């Protein structure tokens, strides 16, 4: 299955998926709602601590930082150096003129983004998609949506390799894909077979779904079981309250 879940047995892996979901929501909300220039960075350190507890620290930092590096560089260049907000106080750094407000803004946006991305990555790394879907379905999410989620995650790598295979096949038949406007004209011969192939699959898949009684009415039993404790339930409610409180404080600040 195409997903970034890495199995393990840490405390984080054993938590109920909804607890982790609530925690992620709280961290992200706090990153964007708490005042203070350094609070998102503090939250990021919290996420790192959690990653350490979850035992995924090793392969965690690198994808996060690498993924965000182009954005951060762009941000600092555009906000900090090239086009600072008007009326900012300049700071000299050798030959380059920075501005305090521009740097602060770039720093704030970067750290918020960092916290956001790493929190979601933490959630996905420690939670099996099927468990997450099952937990949500228990709480009332329609089963079909969970089904779509899981099936798509399963067939995504297959579709990517199909697309690559089609591209190579067309290339070997003389399709030009480099240079000038050719990539645009090459799109239909690439996308067409992919879509038509998928539409032909639809019929078989629909019949397979029907023959497995997916659309039959009545409750379904599940193979997976999730462990949930009272303390986790209480913690979840507290976290949700925390999010509401953050929003309320921010709104009050707005209208003051």
């Amino acid at each position, binding site marked *: 299955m195409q997903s970034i879940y890495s199995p393990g047995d840490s405390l984080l892996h054993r938590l109920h998926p909804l607890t982790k979901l609530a925690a992620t929501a709280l961290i992200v909300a706090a990153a964007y709602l708490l005042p203070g220039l350094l609070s998102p960075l503090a939250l990021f350190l919290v996420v790192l601590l959690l990653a350490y507890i979850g035992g995924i620290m090793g392969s965690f930092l690198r994808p996060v930082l690498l993924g965000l590096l182009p954005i951060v560089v762009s941000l600092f260049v555009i906000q900090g150096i090239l086009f600072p907000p008007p009326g900012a106080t300049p700071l000299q750094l050798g030959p380059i003129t920075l501005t305090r407000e521009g740097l602060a803004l770039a720093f704030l946006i970067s750290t918020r983004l960092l916290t956001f991305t790493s929190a979601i990555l933490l959630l996905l790394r420690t939670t099996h998609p099927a468990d997450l879907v099952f937990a949500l379905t228990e709480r009332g999410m329609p089963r079909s949506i969970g089904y779509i989620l899981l099936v798509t995650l399963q067939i995504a790598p297959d579709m990517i390799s199909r697309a690559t295979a089609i591209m190579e096949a067309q290339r070997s038949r003389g399709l030009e894909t480099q240079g000038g406007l050719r990539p645009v004209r090459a*799109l239909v011969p690439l996308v067409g077979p992919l879509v038509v192939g*998928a539409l032909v699959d639809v019929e078989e898949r629909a019949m397979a779904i029907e023959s497995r009684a997916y659309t039959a009415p009545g409750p379904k039993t599940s193979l997976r079981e999730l462990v949930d404790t009272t303390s986790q339930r209480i913690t979840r409610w507290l976290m949700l309250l925390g999010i509401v409180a953050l929003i309320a404080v921010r709104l009050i600040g707005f209208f003051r």
Partner: protein
Amino acid sequence: MNTTRRSGLNSTALALIPLAIAINIAIGQIVQTLKLPLYLDSIGTVLVGALLGPWLGLLTGALANVIWTLTGLPNSGPAINFAYVAAVIGLIAGFAGRAGLFQRQSPRWMSALVGGIFVFALTLFVLMFLNRSPDPDAFPPFPSAGELLQQYTIVFVITTIIGLAAGYFILQRAGYAGIVGLLTGIVAAILSAPMAAIVFGGVTGAGTDLLVAAFRASGGSILESTLAQGVTSDPFDKMTSFLIVWLIIQSLPRRLLARFPNIQAVEEPTPVPQPAAIR
């Protein structure tokens, strides 16, 4: 076996939607290697909208972006933030499909007109930004359209002619679908600008950041520059997606199309000419 019995999420929908989302992801990833200035990550969404209707298109768009982030593939992080934009794209595609726009040819003059209007508006927009007054207290901050028309008449004439020609030759094969795609792109740009500006600071780490920087250079705020960049690149991207779906639907055999309720609503567009033996 009747697989379309329930309206809405019947087994045909359940079979098609994951495939369509996977197509979004696959093409979105492949296009990155083709180094085009397009994203093309909505083809599946538009397809589902056209074939299954507006509400399923909306669902597919939203889910597609959520799932793309869940896969953890390179550059997939921001996708979940724009799920609402993708949902609207699916919605519009659904209404367009219901109106039969994916099966009708539009008259050529209409395509030419749309092409011309779009390029004219784009030129106006870009020039407005490039000529923004540097004084932050000046109101209005942009020069008026009349002034720009006088100042840059030649530029406008040339670009409008290019737009008309492009509409005539390129859009004419797309029928109404290309036009809807163009408008959808504009809607998508407007919808996605606030999210891109506030959460991402107008920056995605891609080549389009240069465009944002250029608009910032002429004095636009983050939101304005993001909006300008979106309006310049999104319509072409969405128009191409709608075009591709239109072409595919045109070439599909009726047997394949027959299982999809949204498309069935339109009857045969043109009568088949009688063979000589019968006349």
